[in-house]
């Protein structure tokens, strides 16, 4: 269990499936919030990258959902919660290069199979829970003050 620490900021952003015009706006909003709180550039960059990859995954592959930004005294948490279809094999989906992306996603410059791996690389704690046919919830945590290797 993660220890409870006081909440500094909470934001909830809806993500709409296949809305390519808007894809990425949540990440830029998250970035601005974190910059506004005076977070270090490294934390802001990592959180933004994690958020961007997660947001693109939600737009491209899910039925939509929401992204919740939680800033606590010692950490930034980004929660991605969607309405399915779920991930059958999370280990496989996390492998760099594994992708189920359709051509139209690749034409946008995404779908290389790097998304989940990149989210893990930029997070200190990372957890995916998924039930096929129902939903997926991802929690990415970036601890403040811990250097990124």
């Amino acid at each position, binding site marked *: 269990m993660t220890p409870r620490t006081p909440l500094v900021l909470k934001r909830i952003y809806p993500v709409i499936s296949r809305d*390519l*015009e808007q*894809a*990425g*706006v949540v*990440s*830029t909003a998250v*970035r601005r919030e974190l910059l506004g709180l005076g977070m270090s*550039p490294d934390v802001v*960059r990592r959180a*933004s*990258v994690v*958020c*961007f*990859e997660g947001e*693109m995954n939600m737009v491209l592959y899910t039925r939509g959902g929401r992204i919740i930004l939680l800033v606590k005294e010692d950490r930034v948490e980004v929660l991605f919660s969607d309405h399915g279809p779920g991930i059958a094999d999370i280990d496989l989906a996390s492998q*760099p290069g594994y992708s189920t992306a359709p051509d139209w996603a690749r034409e*946008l*410059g*995404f*779908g*290389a*199979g*790097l*998304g989940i*791996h*990149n989210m893990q*690389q930029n997070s200190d704690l990372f957890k995916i829970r998924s039930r096929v046919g129902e939903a997926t919830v991802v929690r990415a945590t970036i601890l403040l003050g811990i250097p990124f290797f």
Partner: protein
Amino acid sequence: MKLREIAQLVDAQFITGSDHADREVARAFAADLLSDVLAMVREEGVLLITGMTTPQVVRVAEVMNMGAVLFVRGKLPTAATVEYACGTGIPLLATRRIMFETCGILYQSELSPAQRKRFPLDHDSPDAARS
């Protein structure tokens, strides 16, 4: 290297952000695959050279705090994307040159490659000079 000099070298025009023509960028990264940009660029203020013109290019550049975006192959982003870029303060440039030429010219003019994370082929001795 200043954006103004980069624009001159590769015959690029400012689509937006010409007021930032004196901005310095020391390094560049070229890719059409935005996943690679997100995964591999690790510093800020980098010049992104790309043939992708979707709104996501500018959002990636914003999220990564990049110095500018240079579109190659004569491609131009949509008006909505340009308008969005105006609000972010990220200059957009465009050239008719292809990516190979653009990168070659800038590399020869001593614009450095972006520092990047380790690649799969790096094995045990990654490119020591860069990382």
